[in-house]
């Protein structure tokens, strides 16, 4: 049993958020300067309650890792009204902290140590990478004090991750691993961003994993490729029937390592339109995730076995 003081490090978030403005159209609410599950959970709770309030003049509600960005139309909604509404929600949450979230756990197949990211990584070594002579995976293992790349890969997919933010570009999830702070995998970003990243690269920067939804620039270390799309503007696959973006903040992700053959088999299913993600609804309890992550993660992941 883990003691609360070490569990995911911060059960406590800074008691009051910081409110600041992005010009005349954006309110920025910094729940905490540091990343933690508790901060992210509070952000998601505020975002949900603000959406429920259906305030006229609210244009976009963008929950992020430890902060919230709200776009509003000041012709309709005075900034002071928006701020007091969000402050009221924050206060309510302080008194009635929300602990559970209806969400889903999704299995995301990943071909780790794949040739696509390796090829791109080769093109961006000198001047871009901390260790131009090595691979991103070897470097990640080293800075985390792990034996080798295989050990890093195991740590990466062994415990599940929470989608803590969706953005940067269309449909790109940021993921935060549901483990104690001292077990978090941390890797610096590239020294200078690449101009290319393969589509569906599984990357890592700071304590965050990301899956690049589209090909393009990027500064995260590259560890593998996801086998199936996460962004489908044509909405051809069943998982995209309702919306072209697959991930939502609050989704729980279990990475599953796949071999080249398994990767190719999934690619074939994507091609013929039959691919579906393995996923199942779960109730996520932040309190339990904070107090005993390993046991709770086990329970969450078992939900995937039932389908």
């Amino acid at each position: 049993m883990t003691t609360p003081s070490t569990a995911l490090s911060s059960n406590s978030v800074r008691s009051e958020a910081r409110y600041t403005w992005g010009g005349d159209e954006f309110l920025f609410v910094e729940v905490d300067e540091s990343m933690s599950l508790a901060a992210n959970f509070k952000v998601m709770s505020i975002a949900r309650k603000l959406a429920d309030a259906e305030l006229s003049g609210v244009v976009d509600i963008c929950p992020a890792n430890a902060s919230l960005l709200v776009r509003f139309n000041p012709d309709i909604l005075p900034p002071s009204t928006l701020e007091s509404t969000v402050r009221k929600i924050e206060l309510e949450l302080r008194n009635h902290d929300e602990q559970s979230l209806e969400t889903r756990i999704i299995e995301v197949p990943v071909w780790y140590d794949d040739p696509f990211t390796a090829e791109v990584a080769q093109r961006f070594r000198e001047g871009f990478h901390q260790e131009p002579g090595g691979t991103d995976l070897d470097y990640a293992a080293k800075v985390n004090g792990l034996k080798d790349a295989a050990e890093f890969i195991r740590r990466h997919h062994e415990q599940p991750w929470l989608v803590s933010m969706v953005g940067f570009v269309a449909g790109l999830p940021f993921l935060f691993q549901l483990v104690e702070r001292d077990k978090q995998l941390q890797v610096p970003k590239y020294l200078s961003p690449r101009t290319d990243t393969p589509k569906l690269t599984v990357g890592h920067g700071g304590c965050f994993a990301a899956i690049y939804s589209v090909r393009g620039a990027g500064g995260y270390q590259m560890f593998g490729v996801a086998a199936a799309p996460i962004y489908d503007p044509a909405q051809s696959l069943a998982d995209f029937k309702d919306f072209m973006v697959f991930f939502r903040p609050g989704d729980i992700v279990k990475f599953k390592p796949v071999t080249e053959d398994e990767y190719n088999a999934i690619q074939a299913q994507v091609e013929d339109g039959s691919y579906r993600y393995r996923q199942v609804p779960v109730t996520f309890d932040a309190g339990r995730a904070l107090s005993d992550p390993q046991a709770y993660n086990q329970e969450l992941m078992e939900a995937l076995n039932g389908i």
Partner: protein
Amino acid sequence: MAFEIKNPGLATTVQDQGRTGYYNVGIPQSGSMDQYSAELGNGLVGNRPGDAVLECTYLGPVLVTDAEAVIAITGAPVEVKVNGEAKPQWTRLHLAAGDELSFGVIQGGTRYYIAVQGGIDVPEVLGSRSTYTLGGIGGLNGRKLEAGDLVPVGSARGDLPSVETLPESFRPSFAKEQSVRIVLGLYDHRLTDAGKDNLLNGEWKVTPVADRMGLRYSGPGVEWKEREQPFGAGSDPSNIVDAGYAVGSIQIPGGTQPIILHRDAVSGGGYAMVATVISADMDLVARAAPGTVTTFVAVSQDEAIVARKERAEQKSKAWESLGAKP
């Protein structure tokens, strides 16, 4: 009817007033960078403000219309040619079937607009016809125009306004110097006093690294306060735990070159923003060509909202000058 694209130009895309409501999943608003110029182009050809236009960047397209068309070219100054003959900007032009529209060299600014009566009639995606090329949605097949494309044009839905030329006094300027109003905030407390002083009193120049996503400026740089970085934020003092980026916000990665995010903004990331361009000045920023000398002037949010109202009134007056209603 349709425009047949003979030569696409450098980066010609379909744009309108953009899409909101999807920034939370990383889909930016998009839309015409210089909204004012695009909108008044629509005004000249009897469209609604939100109808889609073609946005041309530096080098415009060569296109041929397959039917009679009423068009107007607005935005950055450029030589407009119909079948090789020079024509004025900010003025309604009548094309006959088979006429060819082309452009000479741009003489300032970065973007000009082709508005056509009936609007560019591509399908709406998430409530807008705007092209978001990175995500491959909107516009014509989610991309910039290519040679051989047929760009569909809608049917006229109203009368042409009584006036056919926008008076000079309502046309924006495309000067090589700009003063851009900003509201300090977000993470400005992370700058040293000297850093803030550089931001507000320094001279900044638009670099060639400028596109629909954002514009990068060179200049004196800024200083960040040293601190122990919060968990998850990254090691540089300009880093924060990845957060949402306000459109118009100014980030200064590493403290060297400020970037103003514009209409195809990345929706979030790990660089501290220190100020935001006021909504009334976003068109102004969009008009800045590389080399444009820029000073940033801090205003309050109240002043930003007054400026926003003034801009809306100015736009209404421009529509009225055409005998049209927005």
